[in-house]
């Protein structure tokens, strides 16, 4: 996935001379995850540049660059370091189109490597997507596969609205066969993907939990339960039709994410199912999520993250209801 993201940035820099890439250590180093590897060498220090270590400024300055007609793609080094930028994101970036009565927008992307499962230190494994999804005016995109990562990042850079782009760290080194950009037209933001067809229960998820849910589905299949896995791809806009269609067909749903349960994005998904598919439900909808604790030390994170066992237990509860 790292390579796919790198290619997406490279192709956007090449195709749109107004695209800029900025952030901490994204130049010579190529980013701590190497997502920007070689870009500064290829496009120069005017278009790919390291910034001082100040996240609020990275966001606020990106807005200023956007007002001057540039398309900045800013990197927050880690999920847990994105919080100093929240004021700029919430008070200005998200609201710029609205405040200017549509005269101007803030066409910028903030990339955030997010979530856990990589054995990292404190502040390096957080899932802050709900903060952003709760803020009107932001699109929130979360790819789960390399091919999607390429398409969705290109679409995010081309998007006329600000996009918060969450990259699931534990999937950075995942591989997938296929040609980047083979879809031709940019993938529209807001279309979910059925990652696996099934008839007995729908798992609705995103990011790194897509792969984990697919693994759970394979296991369930051996026991005769066919799980449909819906990869949301974006939380805002949310593909309400795809959620409703899948749940109507299976009659059962489990929502899986790494972020804590309380006021997590899963609550939003469950509420949408109530609104759009209640009469099709055979069982209450369940959530399998991180716990309402601070993200734990990495040596016990396996007990925090949803795993196959927890996912299948929830599926068993809804299918046997």
């Amino acid at each position, binding site marked *: 996935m790292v390579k796919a993201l790198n290619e997406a940035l490279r192709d956007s820099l090449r195709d749109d001379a107004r695209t800029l890439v900025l952030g901490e250590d994204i130049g010579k180093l190529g980013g701590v995850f190497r997502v920007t590897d070689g870009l500064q060498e290829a496009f120069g220090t005017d278009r790919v540049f390291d910034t001082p270590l100040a996240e609020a400024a990275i966001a606020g*300055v990106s807005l200023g*660059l956007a007002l001057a007609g540039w398309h900045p793609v800013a990197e927050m080094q880690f999920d847990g370091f994105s919080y100093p930028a929240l004021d700029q994101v919430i008070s200005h970036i998200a609201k710029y189109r609205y*405040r200017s009565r549509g005269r101007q927008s803030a066409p910028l992307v903030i990339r955030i490597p997010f979530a856990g499962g990589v054995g990292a230190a404190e502040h390096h494994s957080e899932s802050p997507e709900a903060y952003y999804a709760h803020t009107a005016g932001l699109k929130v995109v979360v790819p789960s596969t390399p091919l999607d990562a390429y398409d969705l990042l290109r679409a995010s850079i081309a998007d006329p609205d600000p996009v918060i782009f969450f990259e699931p760290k534990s999937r950075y080194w995942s591989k997938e066969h296929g040609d980047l950009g083979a879809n031709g037209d940019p993938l529209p933001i807001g279309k979910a993907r059925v990652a696996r067809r099934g008839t007995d229960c729908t798992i609705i998820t995103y990011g790194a939990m897509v792969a984990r849910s697919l693994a759970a589905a394979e296991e369930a299949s051996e026991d005769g339960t066919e799980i449909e896995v819906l990869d949301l791809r974006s939380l805002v806009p949310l593909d309400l039709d795809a959620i409703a269609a899948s749940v109507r067909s299976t009659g059962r749903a489990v929502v899986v994410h790494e972020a804590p349960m309380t006021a997590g994005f899963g609550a939003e998904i469950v509420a949408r199912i109530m609104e759009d598919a209640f009469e099709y439900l055979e069982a209450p909808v369940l959530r399998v999520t991180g716990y309402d604790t601070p993200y734990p030390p990495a040596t016990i994170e396996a007990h925090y993250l949803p795993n196959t066992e927890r996912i299948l237990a929830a599926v068993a509860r809804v299918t046997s209801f």
Partner: protein
Amino acid sequence: MDARRAGMGEDLGRAVSDPDLESLGLKEEGLRDLFRMMALTRRADLEATALQRQGELAVYPPLAGQEAAQVGSAYALEESDWIFPSYRELGAAVVRGVDLVEYLHFYRATWHGGTYDATAHRFGYVSVPVGSQILHAVGYAMGAKLDGASLCTLTYFGDGATSEGDFHEGCNFAAVFHAPVIFFCQNNQWAISVPVSAQTVAPIWRKADAYGFPGVQVDGNDVLAVYQATREAAARARDEGIPTLIEAVTYRMGPHSTADDASRYRPASELETWKARDPIDRYRERLVRAGVADDGFFAEVEQEAGAFAARLRAGVIASEPRPVEEMFAWVFAELPEHLRRQRQEVLGD
């Protein structure tokens, strides 16, 4: 008034005061224009305060006392330069030709940011989170520089904002990227109820040292000194990519906003002291002394200001709330499904 009398200690650093008229590069017409705009600003500001008291504005932050700081600095810029204001810069808006009715939509609670076209006036939308607009000025300046444009940006903020991280991050970015920015601090002595002595210990203009660019303290009630300091800073910014921090020492003669009661924290004697330094009275004397303006001119300006305020009043009172569908209009470029449903609930379409 010289800066020392304003209680700023002995060290005036690079401050300038009462510059020679010849050194300014302003023709007599320009000198009179500065007065005219300060007078229009004063009248518009008083009118806006009155409109709030009469229930026509939801709230308003008066700027009386800061006219020289705002008009002098905004007037020193070229039209192509951008201004990123905070929320008390009606005087700079006057210089930029922003329709004040459109500006006051913010305070009539009819539209966030105001309804003027920021790009047309190169005057950003009203920005309330303290200090947050500083970063936009820096980013815009960086972007303009990448384009090879010869322009600078100027951002207004107050003494309180110098405690915000955005101020320090903005200064540092501007220095590192050689961004053509003027950081214009109106030190009006009070951040709501907290005096500048309780806000920060180091003199504000000297904070520039920490970032490696010039800091200038200027008598903010001397419109010509402000004009000159800003012109010099703008030239440094455009020609050399050197940012400048200007501390304009001035005074907020009114409350923080119409919702504030300054008598709870501020001695009346202090206001009297500063009233004696009123920037408009002072500049009137200067113009008369220099033989640049006479009673006829001042009477003309008085009349113009009266008409200006009357138009402002009529325009504000005639401003209706925006249609409810605008609540949904510009959240995104295209209305996503979840918002379409909510819009339908409200509008039934």
